Structure formats: structure tokens, C-alpha cells
């Protein structure tokens, strides 16, 4: 049976983080109430292959033409906290286009939309926990959080994992992005080592000659095997 230890302090964002202004009236002020892990928490939605189309994971093939921008492959493994692969789990992504514009009615950044790019994809991990998304490198974009605020380029990730406790929505960043130290959303995570886990790595083995660069992003979800020592605690 798997156990789901709670995160170490500083490895998850501080929900009330005034540098990110939207947290000020939306982050709960009271401490959450700790409850045990019952069947309600140890179960969760299961998604099957039937829900996915053949090109759902290839964001460059959702329209008749090729999208503009730098073609990349983002790939990695979904793992538990023992480093064991999590097979057949749903991974959903969404992102801005190469110009930093989202296909969204409320995004009024005056950068062009790309008729050949929607920016949403999904995949199930294979039996070894692997996923792969051919896509376009998203652009940085301005937001109104503070004067001259820019988000570093990022791709949103949503994962379910094996149960209700493994749900994760996060963002993947790109290596050496000069905006990272200025981003209050990423900097809401106190531990530098934890922030670094959200930054993908350039990986030559994922590149496709004459076609696309490659970035590796391994995703660790909560959960590991119980050991006898922990059972006694």
C-alpha cells in the first residue's frame, strides 16, 4: 500500500504571497484542517485511452497549417517519490503561442494570434511513465501584476496521478530564462531546490534532427511505498 507523506516546508508555494497580487483576496487566511487519508482521498478519477485522439499530444498538428515559432519536443516521465514510473495517467498541457498570446477571449495582449496554433494538448503516459508533446516554444508575455511585469515562458501542466492526493497543476519553465528571478509566481516557492524542479532541461537526445529542439521535464507526484519503519510510527 502506498503512503502519501505531506510535503516538507518550503517545497510548495506559500499561498498568501502578496508579490503576486491575486493571492491577497483569494488565499485562505486560516490554516487548513489536517484529516486522515480515507478511501475518499485514496481513490480518484481514472481515464482511459478511449478519451484521447491520435494527435491530441501533438500541438503542432491541430490545424491544417504549421504553427509559427520554434518547434520543440517536451517529454519526460511521470514518477512517484520512489522514482517509480506512473503508467497510464492523464497529462494535460496548455500554453501561449510563440508570440506570447493565449487563445483566450480575456487575453488582450496585443501580440498576434496564430491561426495554426491552439496551444492545448493531452496524453496518457505509457507503461514506463513516459509522455511526449511536440509543440512550439511559448513566448514570454506581459501581465499587470506590477509595473513592467513579464511572465517567463512557461507551459501549464495538469496531472491526476493514481488518486485524489496526487492531483497536480503546475507550470514548466525553460532553462536560463532571465525572467525567472523576477517572477512572483515561481518565487512564491520558498526553497530554491523546489523552484529548480519546475525548470526543464535541454536534452539533446530528445531533439529531432532538422526538425525540433528537445526539453526534458520529469514530473514527480506525491506517494511512495510504505516501509516497515514508517508503518510503526
Amino acid at each position: 500500500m502506498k503512503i502519501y507523506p505531506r510535503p516538507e516546508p518550503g517545497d510548495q508555494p506559500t499561498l498568501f504571497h502578496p508579490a503576486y497580487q491575486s493571492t491577497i483576496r483569494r488565499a485562505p487566511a486560516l490554516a487548513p484542517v489536517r484529516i486522515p487519508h480515507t478511501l475518499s482521498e485514496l481513490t480518484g478519477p481514472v481515464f482511459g485511452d478511449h478519451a484521447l485522439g491520435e494527435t491530441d499530444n501533438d500541438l503542432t498538428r491541430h490545424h491544417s497549417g504549421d504553427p509559427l515559432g520554434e518547434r520543440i519536443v517536451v517529454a519526460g516521465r511521470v514518477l512517484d517519490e520512489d522514482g517509480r514510473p506512473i503508467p497510464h495517467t492523464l497529462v494535460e498541457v496548455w500554453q501561449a503561442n510563440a508570440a506570447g498570446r493565449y487563445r483566450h477571449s480575456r487575453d488582450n495582449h496585443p501580440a498576434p494570434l496564430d491561426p495554426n496554433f491552439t496551444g492545448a494538448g493531452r496524453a496518457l503516459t505509457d507503461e514506463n511513465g513516459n509522455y511526449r508533446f511536440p509543440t512550439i516554444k511559448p513566448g514570454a508575455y506581459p501581465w499587470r501584476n506590477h509595473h513592467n511585469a513579464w511572465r517567463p515562458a512557461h507551459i501549464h501542466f495538469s496531472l491526476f496521478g493514481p488518486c485524489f492526493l496526487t492531483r497536480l497543476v503546475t507550470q514548466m519553465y525553460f532553462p536560463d530564462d532571465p525572467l525567472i528571478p523576477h517572477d512572483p509566481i515561481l518565487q512564491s516557492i520558498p526553497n530554491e531546490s523546489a523552484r529548480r524542479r519546475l525548470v526543464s532541461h535541454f536534452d539533446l537526445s530528445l531533439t529531432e534532427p532538422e526538425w525540433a529542439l528537445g526539453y526534458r521535464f520529469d514530473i514527480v507526484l506525491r506517494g511512495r511505498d510504505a516501509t516497515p519503519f514508517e508503518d510503526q510510527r
Partner: protein
Amino acid sequence: MNPQRFVALPSQTVGPFFHFGITTDPDLGDLATPSAQGEHIELRVRLLDGDGAPIPDGIVELWQADSTGKYAHPNDTRDREPDPAFRGFGRLATGDDGACTFSTVRPGRVPGEHGAWQSSHINVCVFARGLLGHLCTRIYFDDDPTLAEDPVLSLVPAGRRATLLAHRDEGYGCWSIDLHLQGESETVFFDL
């Protein structure tokens, strides 16, 4: 640092522009097909911020047992099949009024720790711009005579338990609950 150390990734906000990514499927508002067993209900969930203003760019996800209390998941090893006409999972974006409405059935009771039974409840995840990690809570039903025995509700300070109770709303003709992310009537969220 030990390179073999695997630590769960940090959460980040869904941001304001998730709609085209993960809430494109309106069918995820219907957990139950018409032939699902049990009492069919509509459940309106509204998200409010610390000023009491509706949150029009949030996501509500539900996870629940079927009407007999069975979860459609391999970890529910009790020897009976889940209702094939019931999905258990729902996901909707909130509208301009901060609300979204699901069609579902009232879940059956499920076991808790040490052989105790939990009252009928729906497990909830809340996502929004401004939430750096999702919030977890539960929805119970205010006409449930077993609430006083529920082992999870008993861990909640008595004065805050009402924040977890849906009620029949005559105005909307359905079950309804407001989730206050902050403020005087802040909803109880759980550390799981």
C-alpha cells in the same frame, strides 16, 4: 544533494487563461447519466473571494462515490461493481457569477478510519488565478441525520462545520453551496 531523491513537484496557479486547455468539455458537468441509480440532484457551487466577490475564473472539480458508496477506482476493493451509469468525476469552470452547476447523484456513505462510516460527501478541488496551489474541501448535505457522527467533520471546529454543508436553495431549485476562499465565513479547507 542526493541525486536519487525524488520530491513531489510544487504546484503553480492555473492562471486566468486555462479555459481552452482543461475546461472545454461541458459533459464534465454531468457525473450521472439518466439511468444512474440513486437520488439525482443538481449542485450549484459558487466561489467567492475575501471581499465576497464572485470568482469568475475558477475551476471546481468533484470526486465522489456512487449512490451505494462505491468509488470507481481499484483502491476501492470492496466486492461490488461501481454503477456503470455514473462517472464520479466532474470538472467545470465558474461563470461570471462565480458559479457552476453539476448534475450528479447523492453519494452513498463510504468507510473511514477504524471501521467508522463517513457521512455522504463529495470531495472537491478548487483552482483559480491567485491560488498558487489548489484547495481541497468536502461538500456534505445539511439534511443528513448522520453528520454528528462523521469522523472528518468532527475534526473541524464546531463553529466552522456549516461552511461544508450544501443546502436546498429554493431560488435556484437545487442544492447549493458557497465556497469562501477567504473572509469571515472562510470555508474549511483540508490539509491532506
